[in-house]
Structure formats: C-alpha cells, structure tokens
C-alpha cells in the first residue's frame, strides 16, 4: 500500500542533530519503498542545500532545551504555514517528531483531524518541557493515534511525563554508508589511538571523562593518541603540556571524512553522561565495525546488547574507562571479536528494517480509520 506521509521535524534543518538526521533518513527510506513523503522543518539558512522532499517553514529561533540549544519555530505565522502545508499535502498520515516541545510538531497536531503518529526522542528525566500538565499541550497530545519511542529510556520519559504508552522502534542507521572506508591519513598510527565523535564543547557528551582517562593512559603508552572529531572547542585545560600534541582535534568533518573517522582509531569511545535517548554515533561506529567502549547509560547498554557488542564502563568514571580501554588497546583479538559482534548487532537497526516497521505503524493506524464502525463528521 502506497501512502502519502507528511513528516514534521521541529528543529532547524540546517543544524546537524539526531532528530534531523532521523527524519531525513526515514524520509529517504520511505521514498525508496515507494511512498510519497513531504517533510516540514524550519530552515535558518536559506542558502543551505535541502533535499527535494523538504518544505521550509521559515527561520527558527534559538531556545534552550534539554541541556542544548534547540532552534525551533512557533507562533501564529508558523501556524498558518503548517495549515497551508497540511492542506496542500493531503496526507494519509501525519508523522510528527518530538511533539511535546513547543514547536511546529505541536502546531501540526492542533491543526489536523487526520491520523497522527508521533515519535518521541528525548530521554531526560528533568526535561520540564516534556511535562504535559498544561491543558493546551494535552489537547494536542491526546489526538495522537500512535506513539513511537526510539529507546526504552525515551519511552520511560514519555510514560512518566506525558502518560500513556508507546511502541519501541529504535533509530535506524544507514549501515551501507559506514561499512567500508579508508582511515584518515596517518591514523590509527603505531602507538594506538582512541576516537571520539560529537560536539566537543557539550558537557553531556562526556568528552571530559575521556580526556581525563587519556591523561591516565598516555604517560604509560608513548605513542597513544586521541582523535577528536566534531564542532566546538574542547576543554583541554586538564591535559599536561607534554601530552597536548597527542590530542588531535580535527574539527567538524564532512560526511565522507566522518565515515573515515570511524575507521581511523583502534578503540572508539562514547563517554556520554546521559540525556542520550539512543546514540546515533554509537550505531554508526558499530556499522563501521569499530571496537567500542561506551558509558553504561541505559540507552547504550541496550544498543550494545548489554556489553556483547562493545565494552561498557561506569558512566562518568574516567578510571574505569581507562582500564577498559587499556584492555582493548592491548588485545587485537578481542577488538576483532567486538568488531564482528558490533556489525552483526547493528543489522537490526538498519534503516530498511526500521522504516518498514514505521510503515507498519502507519498501516495499523489507517487500518482503524478504514474499518471503524461509524464514520464521524
């Protein structure tokens, strides 16, 4: 069954982020399956190249949300934009993302009478914006026919702050895109290396924990280097001067170099402190067959199958991280074993699998709309 799907992304399309990436990959996978897809999102930079399925809802405004800055769009003019897009799209099903924040997604919920599917990404127990105590918010959320959570942690956040339940459909990863790549020139190097990918200046990404672990390891391992890739300026104040040159920050990488970065270290580290609902970075590293050491936050524990597809260390514990990383650096066989396990485990997260499951949700919702006993006006 071919469907017309309208997808709403609340965050600015020209800023990289997990939700934006999820929406883009989902749209592409659904289009490849033969469905018609239109994505509505704010776009801050009109010069930014956008895919053909994207419809801009205008310029977003920055709002602090969930420990980061979210660039969103809200208000009467945005609302008119949403209604126009809905009328022109004539969608079978509307799929909104992260509708609990004041956003385009929420406006879309208010403006439609058709079937709504919503995906919840956030897992943050303190996220006050999630709390649906206000009547206005509840009146929008109770219209949603099907809720999807991208992780057990996101689902629990939803259950506790909004109420109700959701089915679990994890984020997808384009496994093919990451499978093979040449390492970046000069990496991983003779003395071994540990890799990190993500924002370098966002505390909850946990880079500080990794840097401290590195200062424990580096003095005993003369050639060991740290590979950092991502936007922002890392805080290296805790690194002694003689180790500074072994911490290599490559800045933000383009898509091809990002894939190569996953193939450029002996051990890949995801030291996140929390607030992470799923960990796209982790699944990308798994698709690249990296030997992973990650913090044991619930989302990572689940993705790494409880440690079978990557080593887990106690969150925010640099000594434990150093210990785990040292074992991996010294044992190529164990690394190869983890690499194989990671590649096998990540197949369940391939976008082809995930998008088919999401299309199944759309069909289930439409099934009820078609078979309902008394159609109402």
């Amino acid at each position, binding site marked *: 069954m071919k469907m017309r799907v309208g997808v709403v992304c609340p965050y600015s399309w020209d800023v990289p982020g997990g939700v934006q990436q999820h929406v883009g990959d989902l749209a592409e996978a659904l289009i490849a399956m033969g469905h018609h897809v239109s994505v509505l999102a704010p776009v801050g930079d009109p010069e930014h190249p956008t895919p053909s399925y994207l419809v801009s809802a205008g310029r977003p405004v920055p709002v602090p949300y969930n420990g980061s800055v979210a660039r969103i769009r809200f208000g009467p003019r945005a609302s008119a934009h949403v209604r126009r897009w809905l009328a022109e799209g004539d969608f079978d099903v509307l799929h909104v993302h992260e509708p609990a924040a004041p956003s385009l997604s929420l406006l879309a919920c208010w403006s439609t009478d058709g079937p709504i599917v919503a995906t919840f990404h956030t897992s943050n127990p303190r996220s006050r914006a999630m709390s649906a105590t206000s009547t206005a918010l509840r*009146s929008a959320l*109770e*219209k949603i*026919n*099907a*809720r999807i959570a991208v*992780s*057990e*942690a996101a689902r*629990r956040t939803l*259950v*506790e702050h909004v*109420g*109700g*339940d*959701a*089915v*679990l459909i*994890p984020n997808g990863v384009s496994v093919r895109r990451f499978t093979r790549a040449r390492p970046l020139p000069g990496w991983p190097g003779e003395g071994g290396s540990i890799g990190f990918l993500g924002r370098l200046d966002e505390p909850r990404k946990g880079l500080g924990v990794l840097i401290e672990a590195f200062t424990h390891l580096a003095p005993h391992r003369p050639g060991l280097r740290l590979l950092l890739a991502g936007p922002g300026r890392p805080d290296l104040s805790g690194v002694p001067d003689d180790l500074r040159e072994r911490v290599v920050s490559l800045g933000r990488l383009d898509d091809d170099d990002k894939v190569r970065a996953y193939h450029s270290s002996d051990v890949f580290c995801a030291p996140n402190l929390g607030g992470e609902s799923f960990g796209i970075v982790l699944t990308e590293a798994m698709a690249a067959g990296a030997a992973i050491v990650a913090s044991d936050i*619930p989302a990572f*524990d*689940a*993705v*790494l*199958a*409880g440690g*079978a*597809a990557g080593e887990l260390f106690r969150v925010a514990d640099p000594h434990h991280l150093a210990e785990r990383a040292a074992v991996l650096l010294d044992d190529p066989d164990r690394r190869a074993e983890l690499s194989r396990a990671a590649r096998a*485990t990540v*197949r*369940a997260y391939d976008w082809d699998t995930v998008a088919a*499951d999401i299309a*199944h*949700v759309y*069909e*289930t*919702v439409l*099934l*009820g*709309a078609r*078979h*309902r*006993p*008394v159609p*109402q006006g």
Partner: protein
Amino acid sequence: MGTVVAVLLVLALIGFYLSWRATRLDRLHHRVETARAALDVALLRRAAAVLDLAASGHLGTEASVGLREAANRVRRADAPHRELAESALSATLRETLGTRTALTTGRESQEVRVAARGVHLARVFHNDAVGDTRRARRSRLVRLLRLAGTAALPDFFEMDDQAPEAAHPRPTPRGSTVERASGDKHLSGQRSRNGPD
C-alpha cells in the same frame, strides 16, 4: 446593562469551554473506536496467517495441528475468553517459531511474524487510547456534567503479545511489553530490565 452583558459574556465563555471539553472527549472515544477496529483486524490477520502456516506443510504434523487448533480457538472464542485465547496463540507461536529456526524461515512464517508484530502495535495504540480516555473521564467536571454522555467506559485489551522469536534476534526490547503508567489494570506489566533506577 453592563452587568447583563458581562454575565452573558461569561456564560458564553463557559459554554464554549464546555463544548470544547465535550468535543475533546468525543474525539478520544472516537480514537478508541478506530484503535479497537485496527486491533480486531490485526488479530484476524494473525489468525489467518497462522492457519496459512499450519497448512503450508513446512512444519511437522504435531506443530501444524497445535497451531491450527490454537488459531481456531481464537476464532471461536467469545468476548470474555478472547484475551486468554489470543494469549494462548502467542505462546503456541513462540513454542513453534522460537525453536525450529531451520524450518521456519519460509514466507508463511515471516508473514506470521509480521502479523504478530501488527497485533503488538495495534494493542499498544488501543490501550494507550483507552488510558487517555479513562484519564479524561476521571475529571470532576466531566463526571459532574456527564460530558461523556452515554458512551461506555472503554476497557483495556490485555493479552500476551510477546513476539515469536525473530529470525535475527533484536538486541533492544528487553521488557518491551506494555508497562503502563496508569494504574487502572495491571496484568501484563513487565518491569523493564533497566528499571526505574
């Protein structure tokens, strides 16, 4: 004069508010109805897919007969026994598809897996709608003014809908079966492995 206008205005606002509340409630009942229709279709599809699998000849005689009987019991079960019969079918499916992996990779078994997933999706959406509706009907205003009218209080559909083991076992959903927040009824609530820690 001014007082009269003010009173009329207030009455009109109250009227608007109440009609908005009633509309919301009506929409919730409607959501339950459509979700229930989807669940019924999903359950029928699963039973049909199971009968196809039983007739396919891919399984041994004993397994085929077991599946056919479980599927037929589901079709014959009347309302009060449906949840049990559907749960029994889930259990039978797990026994059959969970163990004989070499024999169960055919098209028919794959269709049963997809149909079983459909039952899980439809049931979560249905129970979610029921939960929202029951919560809305607990409101004092709704009860006092009988805004729900004559609509019956919707019931949860409780059954074991755990998937028959997938061909590629998924690492994630440990304890992914329904764990509802509302305390209306708590039959199938499995604690998540990660727990609320």
